[in-house]
């Protein structure tokens, strides 16, 4: 059990790499940096494979228990004396271990994170070759790997949260990698803060769990969830907990309404977008929800919420993706949309399907981004598809790999995407209740859109007429080996990864789902109960239903959708020359405008929350207060800054005004001033005239006398 016993080394490897880079990196040669960083991740990958293999062996003999190893107690005194009361009045010790847990779920993430991670590291060698801050970049990347691996391998929520925040930090650092660009650092801040909003939900959710279960270890939580029946009140709290967790997921996995940071995150270098904002980090939310499946299935409300949010996000983002011109933004929105798919899957209880989609998506989306990167590389930095075209022959490898990825994402069999996406749609359909049919429709339409915008991307980039300027065209060249190799590998994966989940209905044996059964089986069974499908408790029965004609029908339909999307894209863009016309624009300019402007969500946020935009001269939201207060500041509080930013900043200005003038003014300086004012009369009393003094004395005396004689 060499690997499994030393599984804790896996996250530490990149941690060392990252730390080394950040502390000593500046002095190192690029070669050394490559060896260290890429080497670390490579080792991690090897160890990961080893551990997973050993685990599968181990699990056979251990009734598919998760493998858990605890290094030391991280939070808490480990004496059991630092206790807190749980919801049922019992006493639970405050504790969170630095402990790792390996089970099918984490194994999958472990594999593709290290794997894709390694590829992207290799890719970066070429991509970043000419960038400054080389060591910094790789340091951050390694740090990210460390956080991500912690997140995956954590055996309790707190440690998961460590990775959770860690990846957030690394994405912040990497988005802001070109920190001299204001847009970059803005995007970085936006990402971190929006994530923090989600995280705060996550923290509270964690506390609810701790309060309910008296522990934050996944095994304990699952045990708690699985034990018999729960009182309605408990279920209420579980719902609260799961919803709060989902808030966290929304932040991290860019779901409505917190998705806004992801598109901006494209400010980062392309490999970062590929690794963090496509393949790995953004799927953390999915992982966390899947990890908590036992709890989620106890809270139908939460499940429905997840499903609906997921579906809406999916179609919402996809529709935006239809018209974007920046190649990376198209991919960004497609990522959001695919994440929506995953949540839809989780929401309908098809955890395995969701995870499967994460798995496949990791490959083809990473591939797409890297391909896009390669394209941009070739186009010497150009990202606008309107200025591309006809690159098919010029950069053939990129072209072929990207084409494969596109086929995969559009769900054309037998490419990976087909299997996962089809599974999700199918599961949605089979869920009882009309609501789910609506969700299915949404998903279906999304699939169509996906196919459309992806092929639009392909056609505008590789076919159609060249629309780039002369000298750009002159420089076009295929990317170096270090970039090509990963593309090819990923392409292969996107081609074959789907076979792992080859559905039974097509004569396969759904290895993937079977592999995950120990994690999800009871969960899915539970959903079925919730959905009143008492008849289908057992997986076996599911299989029969699985092979129903409906499924084939749906399968055909979804492929058809992909085909339709492809065809439409071909028709409108195959021969696009400079100044080509967007079909949607032709159909309805209004819609096009709305889509192009992303439904004006950012603007809306600016109107409502930040108030950075006016409605015919009238400012709503924070800035409304802001202007009022800044007027006030200008006229009352001298030298106060005018203008306002976020709602908090405005409130802050108000409160600081309050601070300076009310609390400090009346509360503190007030008495002082008053005293000084009183001091002068008190002194004036001292006229300096003897007789006045004598008079005062006498009056004092007489006063006392009168008081006593006549009272």
């Amino acid at each position, binding site marked *: 059990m060499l690997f499994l016993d030393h599984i804790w080394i896996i996250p530490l490897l990149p941690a060392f790499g990252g730390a080394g880079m950040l502390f000593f990196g500046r002095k190192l040669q690029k070669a050394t940096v490559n060896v260290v960083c890429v080497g670390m991740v490579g080792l991690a990958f090897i160890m990961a494979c080893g551990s997973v293999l050993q685990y599968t062996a181990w699990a056979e003999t251990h009734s598919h228990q998760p493998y858990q190893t605890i290094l030391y107690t991280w939070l808490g*005194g480990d004496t059991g*004396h*630092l206790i*807190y009361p749980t919801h049922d009045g019992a006493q639970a010790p405050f504790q969170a271990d630095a402990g790792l847990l390996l089970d099918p779920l984490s194994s999958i993430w472990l594999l593709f994170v290290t794997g894709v991670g390694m590829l992207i590291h290799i890719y970066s060698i070429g991509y970043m070759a000419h960038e400054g801050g080389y060591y910094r970049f790789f340091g951050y990347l390694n740090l990210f790997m460390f956080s991500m691996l912690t997140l995956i391998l954590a055996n309790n929520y*707190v440690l998961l949260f460590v990775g959770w925040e860690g990846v957030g930090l690394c994405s912040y650092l990497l988005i802001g990698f070109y920190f001299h660009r*204001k847009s970059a650092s803005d995007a970085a801040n936006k990402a971190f803060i929006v994530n923090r909003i989600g995280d705060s939900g996550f923290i509270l959710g964690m506390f609810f769990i701790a309060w309910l279960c008296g522990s934050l270890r996944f095994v304990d939580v699952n045990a708690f969830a699985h034990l018999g029946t729960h009182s309605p009140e408990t279920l209420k709290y579980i719902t609260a907990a799961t919803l709060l967790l989902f808030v966290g997921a929304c932040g991290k996995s860019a779901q409505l309404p917190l998705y806004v940071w992801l598109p901006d995150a494209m400010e980062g270098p392309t490999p970062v977008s590929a690794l963090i904002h496509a393949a790995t980090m953004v799927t953390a939310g999915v992982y966390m929800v899947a990890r908590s499946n036992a709890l989620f299935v106890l809270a139908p409300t939460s499940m429905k919420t997840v499903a609906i949010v997921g579906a809406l996000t999916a179609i919402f983002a996809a529709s935006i993706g239809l018209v974007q011109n920046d190649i990376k933004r198209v991919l960004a929105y497609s990522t959001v949309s695919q994440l929506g798919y995953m949540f839809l899957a989780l929401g309908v209880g098809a955890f395995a399907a969701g995870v499967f989609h994460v798995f496949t998506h990791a490959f083809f989306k990473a591939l797409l981004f890297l391909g896009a990167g390669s394209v941009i590389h070739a186009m010497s930095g150009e990202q606008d598809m309107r200025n591309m075209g006809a690159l098919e022959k010029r950069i053939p490898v990129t072209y072929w790999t990207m084409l494969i990825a596109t086929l995969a994402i559009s769900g054309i069999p037998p490419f990976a995407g087909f299997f996962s996406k089809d599974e999700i749609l199918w599961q949605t359909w089979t869920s009882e209740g009309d609501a789910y049919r609506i969700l299915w429709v949404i998903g279906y339409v999304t699939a169509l859109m996906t196919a459309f915008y992806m092929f639009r991307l392909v056609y505008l980039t590789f076919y159609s007429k060249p629309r780039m300027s002369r000298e750009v065209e002159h420089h076009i060249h295929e990317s170096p080996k270090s970039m090509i190799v990963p593309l090819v590998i990923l392409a292969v994966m996107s081609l074959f990864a789907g076979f792992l989940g080859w559905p039974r209905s097509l004569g396969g044996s759904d290895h993937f789902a079977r592999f995950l059964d120990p994690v999800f089986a009871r969960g899915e069974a539970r959903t079925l109960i919730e959905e009143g499908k008492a008849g289908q408790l057992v997986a076996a029965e599911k299989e029969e239903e699985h092979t129903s004609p409906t499924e084939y029908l749906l399968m055909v339909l979804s492929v058809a959708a992909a085909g339709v999307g492809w065809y439409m894209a071909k028709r409108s863009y195959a021969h696009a020359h400079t100044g080509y016309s967007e079909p949607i624009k032709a159909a309805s300019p209004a819609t096009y405008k709305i889509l192009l402007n992303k439904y004006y969500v950012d603007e809306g946020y600016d109107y409502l929350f930040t108030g950075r935009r006016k409605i015919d001269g009238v400012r709503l939201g924070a800035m409304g207060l802001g202007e009022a207060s800044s007027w006030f500041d200008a006229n009352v509080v001298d030298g106060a800054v005018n203008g306002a930013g976020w709602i*908090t900043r405005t409130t802050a200005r108000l409160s600081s005004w309050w601070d300076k003038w009310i609390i400090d003014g009346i509360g*503190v300086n007030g008495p002082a001033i008053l005293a000084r004012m009183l001091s002068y009369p008190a002194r004036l009393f001292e006229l300096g005239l003897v007789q006045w003094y004598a008079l005062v004395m006498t009056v004092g005396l007489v006063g006392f006398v009168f008081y006593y004689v006549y009272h």
Partner: protein
Amino acid sequence: MYSHILSIVLFTPLAGAILLLFVPKENKDAIRWIANIFAFGGFLISLPLVPWFWNLRFEPGFKFVEGSANNWIPSIGAGYVLGIDGISFLLIMLTTLLGWISILSSWTAIENRVKEYYVWFLVLQTGMLGVFMALDFFLFFVFWEAMLVPMYLLIGIWGGPRKLYAAIKFFLYTLAGSVLMLLGILFLYFHHHGATGVYTFSIPELYKTAPQIYYDYGASAATLLFLSFFFAFAIKVPMFPFHTWLPDAHVEAPTAGSVILAGVLLKMGTYGFIRFSLPFFPDVLMHTRVRFWVMALSVIAILYGALVSLMQKDMKKLVAYSSVSHLGFCTLGIFALSPLGLSGSVLQQINHGVSTGALFLIVGILYERRHTREIAEYGGISSVMPVYATITMIMFLSSMGLPLLNGFVGEFSILQGTFMEKEIAGHPGWFWAAWAVPGVILAAAYLLWLYQRVFFGTVTNPKNEKLHDLTPREIATFAPLLIMAFWIGLYPKPFFQILEQPVNQLVQNIRPDYGKPAGTMNASVQPRTAAPARQDLAKTGGIPSLLRGKN
């Protein structure tokens, strides 16, 4: 050594100060060296405490107790008694560490009246240590007030443009709080005499009788008494409406002064709450309205401090206000009155000392180079001073509570400790926690925004192009703080173990009904008499009845 370790630690800085008096004030370097040697020596001398205390960490009661009650001023029953428990132990270590760091940090920062500066600083050091060590209320009060003087001079002499205002404000404001406390102390003193026929200021002795006041004089009297202490500590912390001395003091104070001010002085308030308010007035604290207000003020402080710091244009002011927010977390943890909240609170105090101390050093370093703290003056610093930028980032992260750094551990335990309470002042614990959580978001907002404005972007201001990166000495000042930040972040277990006994004991005394972990009860503080006994006390009332009600 072993038996007098506390006295030794306490007076090492003072010895340094006295020695400095004999050095001619022209000989600046000698003065600097001596001061630094003594400050560092003070730290080294306090190190043996660590292993020694570690062995006793689960022992009940105060450790290393030195001197006997009434041995100082027998005729009023005041004694020179020192002793520490887990809480004061951590704070003492923090003090010795920060004292050394801040003295090291002012090597180049202070150019005029060097001798005076170091003398006052070392005196201040002794004063602060005394506050944390004193087991006699009279002694405590002496240190508590004496320590104001050097701080006042540090601000007033080496401070910025509005130093006079800031210094006097600091002195008067904090003194105003503590004089009322004196009356409270005297009341306890007489009450204890009434109960036991003994006049003493010994804190462990007062622990035994003070809680009875609630039953002898009624709730309102006890509440007034509670307030007389509360103001003293709330001003020092500072809690929400009493915080306005802080920004002024911080902005004007020299860097090292700010470090000590934020790192240690503020902790005296929270320490006072833990050491006095909680054990003395348990029933008052459990009183719904009181509890509600203290909790509400803490939450307000968290949000308010964060909001205000968000819009500051002066870095130092920003950090100062962030202290208000952080200390809000500390008080929240204290008044949650749960072991978890309390230990989190103490831990957070240490963290705040480390992180905010570092933040002030960071601001100070820029200030030393550019003599301005206007955020707008900077930008793109990270390309000029990469090492500095990295350290700053780490410290910002630790301050905003990023996991694996110290801040997170404290805030997490505080929030969980609050959250887990079924009912606090008529609201469920999660209600309070939920209100506090946005503070974490805001912390990220103001710190990252500050970082963006100062470090990111391109160097626009030509004055910033020539800035030289950290010198080895400056790095040396940061090193221990970085180590602490990572240590607490990665392996806080020892801290929790050190805190376990005192916090459990506190909660035991305040809420005897709280779950009873075995073997953490402390003999030195016996729980108050059982309810029936209280009843007849309440009926008969007055001090004499205590003589009856004592057994």
